[in-house]
């Protein structure tokens, strides 16, 4: 049990109400600036934390699929002609194109990281604009962000082509449980990567519209981490399909 020490004037009506009247008049902690708005570092930290939390259910989604994949692989199936239990898991030969797609995605992840560092540098230099006589320089820069975007779209197109190759070799969604999982895992991953592509497009549109550099910087930063996650996830999926079958 604590005791109350009347060091404060408890007759103060603001304190007796438990009001905030006796407190500093503006936000002073938590990374807020003097206008009461969160500063850049706070917003970036918050966005990164949000992304980290958001990746958890994505991870759980693919953990569930992996669990189902392993369980389904070991299940026997009843053959109605012979009335015996047989294995219906026919391993799918994955198209070689997936390896090329993997290279494209990994390369795009590298570009994405360079884009992230580039826009962070631009944002840091932006303050120099306001100093008289100081110019941050007008040297040309490599368009890492558009290049990442293009590679992302190429990857998605490559995945579509891989699907067509699978279908051409007779493996449709319901042909065999293994082909069901190939379509399921690659499709779900593609939908998630499409989210990253849309985020990059959003950042590009924001740039064209002249929206603030700090906001674009945050969008690119969290999209970059998301993109890296998607690249890692794809490598995991490919290994699962190739080696656990």
């Amino acid at each position, binding site marked *: 049990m604590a*005791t109350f020490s009347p060091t404060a004037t408890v007759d103060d009506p603001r304190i007796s109400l438990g009001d905030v009247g006796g407190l500093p008049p503006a936000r002073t*902690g938590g990374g807020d600036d003097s206008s009461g708005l969160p500063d*850049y*570092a706070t917003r970036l930290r918050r966005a990164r934390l949000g992304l980290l*939390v958001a990746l958890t*259910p994505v*991870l759980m989604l693919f953990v569930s699929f992996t669990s189902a994949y392993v369980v*389904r692989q070991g299940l026997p199936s009843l053959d109605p002609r012979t009335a015996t239990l047989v294995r219906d898991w026919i391993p799918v030969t994955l198209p070689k194109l997936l390896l090329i797609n993997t290279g494209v995605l990994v390369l795009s992840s590298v570009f994405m990281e360079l884009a992230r560092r580039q826009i962070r540098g631009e944002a840091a230099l932006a303050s120099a604009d306001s100093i008289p006589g100081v110019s941050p320089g007008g040297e040309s820069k490599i368009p890492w962000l558009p290049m990442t975007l293009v590679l992302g779209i190429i990857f998605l197109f490559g995945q579509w082509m891989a699907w067509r190759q699978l279908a051409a070799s007779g493996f449709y969604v319901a042909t065999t*449980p293994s082909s*069901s999982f190939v379509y399921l895992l690659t499709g779900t991953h593609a939908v998630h990567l499409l989210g990253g592509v849309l985020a990059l497009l959003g950042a590009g549109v924001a740039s064209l519209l002249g929206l603030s550099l700090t906001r674009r910087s945050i969008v690119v930063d969290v999209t970059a981490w998301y993109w890296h996650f998607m690249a890692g996830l794809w490598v995991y999926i490919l290994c699962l399909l190739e080696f656990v079958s």
Partner: protein
Amino acid sequence: MAGGTGGGETITMSTHESAVQAHAHAAPQGFIRKWVFSLDHKVIGLQYYFLALVAVFVGMFLSLLMRIHLIWPTAALPLLGDIKPETYLTLVTMHGTIMVFFVLTTAPQGGFGNYFLPIQIGAPDMAFPVLNMLSFWTTFLGFIVMIAAFFVAGGAPLHGWTGYAPLSAVQSTGPGEGLGADLWIISIAIFCIGALMGALNFITTTLDMRAKGMTMMRMPLTVWAWFVTAILGLLAFGVLLSAGILLLMDRNLGTSFYVPLITVNGQLTGHKGGSPLLWQHLFWFFGHPEVYIAILPAMGLASQLLSVFSRKPIFGYKAMVYAILAIGFLGFMVWGHHMFMSGMSPYTAFAFSIMTMGIGVPSAIKTFNWLGTIWGGRIRFDSPMLFAIGFVSLFVSGGISGPFLAQPVLDIQLHDTYFVPGHFHLIMGVASIFGIFAATYYWFPKMFGRMMNESMARWHFWFSFIGTYAIFMPMHYLGMAGMPRRYSQMTEVGYLHDLIPLQKFITYAAFVTIAGQLIFLVNLFWSMFKGKKAVDNPWEATTLEWTTATPPPHDNFGGHTPVVHNGPYEYGVPGAPRDYVMQSDPEIEPAH
């Protein structure tokens, strides 16, 4: 100009951006932005609350139809006419689904959590307001899709709220298993996405937006409960979503994840090799944590209210926090106890059984701490306190039958009987509902600036308290006597004949209890406009929501951020000029 540093990164905001943000923080004026597509967590909380209110009356109406049909099986029912067995199963399915997802998950977390979590930690809003708005409207869309299942060819599904395959995985298994079942799955998938967006906001807000001085161990237990509930949702809803995707593929793309080689109405379905148990594992990995998603917020609230209305600090604050964490953790370890009937290995069942009974330990810690809190207190029996005590009573009554069902030998006898609905309605359903009622009576003054009518609240409490016991306690006896659940017509079964009077009693009790809820409805809307004006802190409570205006301003604290100096349950402090010290009051000194 605003500038900020951190992590070696120095960025200067443009004038334009500051202007945009200042605008974003201003209170919206138009009706659409203020009340429909609002970014304000308080408005979004109210939206969730009223969505749950609509859903609970829909769900309650369906349960009433079930109860009428059970004792008058030949009677034509309003809107439905004659009830066929499959129609009865449709009622069971939709009642359970609507109640679990759109009431028990929506109101305590989406409603009250949204409204009060940011205020209780001293934040101006949720971390991601736009995502918060999307979260609500996604949930709303999910509800519309769910209700739409009633109005498509074949009607709503009949596979139960648990959606067991292969019944749920093949379109030809019943009249509601066509488009209705697809809508059911899509609705739940949409709900999952909305719930995940909400959970993201709850966790980020709690971790990153606490006011100065609001350490984790100074957070009210309500905040702890919402926080842990959000973590549970984050881990569980992704799994349910994955299970739903596989189910949709089995139903519409001909895959065989869940469906083995089976015939339906003499026809091979074309599936082979799938496992219905795979669905059960995935579903219950979500389903059991869902029980805690429903009840943890009510536990947090009960802790809060028992302390406030006993005028005593919560007994064992740290133990309560660790108990919440332990319940959340163990909740993911026990899904197999829903599957004792599935032919699982006795050794596996034994492990799940031990883990399940292990949850009794943190649950008992909480219960004894609640009793310790009110022991010797100067109890104020206001309506929120009545419902909080009611919650504890229902939690104990419903919880005590948990260890029965946790034992495989007993569960095999009791599993498909009325014992199980009796158990889970008390512990998960009605206990959580009592938490929602307690929260409504407690926070109504803050939300609407007026007090609810206390006389009507007391009538409502006694109708609800006696009524729910009258409905659900006899179900335990029905179950032990062998009355199976899920069947629509049991009045002609000889060995159950002596149980018909008990079934009738339950139905009459349901009539009375539901009539009591109309008192609540009248009180709620009457008090919004005609209730007595509320002061800022009518219950003399200590947490931050009671330090601000009533109702709170758009940014919660009118341009200020509170600084926290004290814990959330400082009641009866020796030497204090009154019997409570608010969290933002000057720091109190520890006793020597």
